[in-house]
């Protein structure tokens, strides 16, 4: 059964760029079914003899979809270990000890933090829990050890009002005093 699903190919179509061009990627159903969106789109009564279905992924850019496809394909070969909570490690590589996945979300592979956020958005949109966990974990360790202002800059967040900030600091005075 697993081999049959690998023989069924799908075509994923990304969001059009500023020129109106979309990118398309072929992927086996066995790999793609990790995505709830794709699994629901294809349905249960699809057979191998049917024409290759084309699935629009309108909220995911081409570059990002390429990486999503790469993730799905690799996951088919080497499933990612479930991320435990509590994490059990003080660094990303300690928690995620699978080298390919470490490299997948590394800055050198993604290029920028924007791509990481795009991946996170795509994982959420496409319903890929494993990719969502992986990207959330990466974001988590980017926030760990940072102060509020740095977190705000990393995630591009608006500020608390001074009253809200003062109240929040008063509520959590114990942790700041200890530091």
């Amino acid at each position, binding site marked *: 059964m697993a081999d049959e699903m690998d023989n069924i190919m799908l075509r994923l179509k990304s969001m059009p760029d500023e020129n109106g061009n979309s990118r398309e990627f072929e992927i086996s159903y066995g790999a793609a079914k990790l995505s709830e969106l794709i699994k629901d789109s294809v349905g249960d009564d699809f057979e191998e003899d049917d024409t290759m279905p084309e699935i629009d992924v309108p909220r995911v850019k081409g570059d990002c979809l390429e990486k999503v496809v790469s993730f799905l394909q690799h996951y088919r070969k080497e499933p990612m270990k479930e991320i435990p909570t509590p994490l059990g490690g003080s660094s990303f590589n300690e928690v995620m000890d699978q080298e390919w996945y470490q490299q997948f979300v590394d800055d050198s592979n993604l290029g920028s933090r924007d791509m990481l956020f795009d991946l996170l958005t795509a994982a959420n949109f496409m319903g890929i829990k494993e990719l969502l966990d992986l990207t959330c974990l990466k974001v988590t360790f980017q926030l*760990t050890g940072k102060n509020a202002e740095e*977190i705000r800059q990393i995630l591009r967040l608006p*500020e608390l009002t*001074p*009253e809200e900030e003062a109240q929040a600091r008063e509520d959590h005075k114990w*942790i700041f005093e200890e530091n």
Partner: protein
Amino acid sequence: MSDLNVVSVEDGNEGIVGLENENENVISVAVAAVTHPNSDNNRAGVNGQKPMASSIAVTASPTLTTIQAFSPTTDQLERCGRWLSSIPRDDVTALRDTPEYHDFLQAFERLGYAHRRVISCNNNRNEISPGSSPTNSLWSSLANGGLGMGTSSNASSTGTINSGTWMNDNIQTQRAQLRSAISDFAGTNVPSTLATAISSAAKQPLAQQPHIHPSLTINAFLQHTDDVILRVFEFLESQSLIRASLTCSRFHQLAHRGATQRTYQIARTRQLYNVMQLLRAHEQIFDGDQINHNTTLGHVRVPMLLLRRRIVVSDAGDPEYNGVYYCTNSNGNGFVFTKPRHPIQRVSDRRQRLQSLQPDPSQQQQFNQRNNTNGTQGQANNNNNNNAANVGNIHGLLQRPQIQQLILQQRQQHPGQRVRLLLMQNQNVHQAQQAQQPAAVGGVNGNPPHQPVAVLPAVVLQQQQQQQQQPIAAGVLGGPIMPDNDNFSSTRYDGEIAQPGQPLRCIISKRFSNETILWYMSKEVEAAPMGSEDSEEDHEIEQDGIREVFSYWSKLMVLGAASPDVCRYPSQTSILSRQGDGWQSLAVTQRPPTVELLD
């Protein structure tokens, strides 16, 4: 601040007080909240009339050196001064009842609204409509003629601030601009104008968190749903989570929600979420006889606060014992202090670790050496651990292949039942061994007939012959070694369900040894399944259980040597050492630890 004189500044309905120093520079301006005074004749308004309400309280920048266009008469100023002096300052209660105080609060609140409005409008402007400038905002009021400061550099700069770059500007620069803009108010007839601006801004509804269409933002994290953000927060430890909660109001809410979800179990079992149960507990504790005895209301568990101070263990020969312990539980013997063991010890890959467990070679060698003696006891090591030789190394004891084999045999003969381990004197071994068969039926030494007993000859354990009480590993005689496998989690954590992969613990608790209460230090050890290397079946860790292995003991501290409060805690090395005692090791290979209170 010496030789300050009250100078006249401006006439009008508002009372302005300026203080002039020796250099004839006005160094501060206080715009008094002049309102309708009460019937108290001691309060005089300006010009003898009831002053109009302006409700503004603004303290200008200390850099302000001149005041323009304010020049009330001296008489008016004196009246203002007397009026200000008449406001009670020492009597807080009376002060709170004055209308001036209420007006001051209202003015302060309106200033706060205006401030928030500025921030919200700025964010709204940049997030929703980057190209347009906000309307009806305080900032626009200040910049567009509310002050009449056309020549002000700040005013010109406000008109040229690129809203698209606002988000990227230094926040401190923005605040400084706002402050300096406010500080320039004194150049014109500011108070009424500022009041108008503030009032108009305050009348605008406070901007809610704007709905940001994803296409309009540049990867702002707030575009994600709550579930995604909560997933990130699920991974964050408390300190980082708190800092994340300080970033924006939405993160503040979600961070608290995430923390609530993660602590639900512990709060539920300790009745922290159910105030009605707490109220019932309160009645049980304090109301007592006043409760109607005919009530059918049941009783609840009384939540208990455990000991507050921490324990730090150091210099233990076994490094897993070193660290900070917290009081996490209590049992029939007293308080229990625990700490999780090293994160690497977590049960994440149980099969591999179980298969790698081997008896300690050094302990095996010592065991062989003891067996080769002529039945005499082993000598204590240099740190006075007579007891270690007497009762054997409990930690190493359970690792002995012979012991494990014995236990395994009992378990195979009596599956699903606990195995008790008895230490017997040499002369009793023969009797016990003879009685072992009937033990399964009739019991030995008072054991229930259905409970299997593993009898170990003393020649294996080198039990001491002396009459003085010696600590005996309570885990051996004081209770079952193996926890109840059916309710494993609840037994370990006293009703709180242990999550999968819960780290093992190191434990300091009081226990009985014969009839003596002592402090014991132990740690949880995963049992190695016998024959696992030959078996292809998966062995769940729950089937093999987790053993509590005792390694150290100490006497209780006595009153006089320590205060009653300190005596509740595990015995401290610094106190025991004055009496020539200290923590003792149950193993010859382990140094006794140093135990002290923190906080």
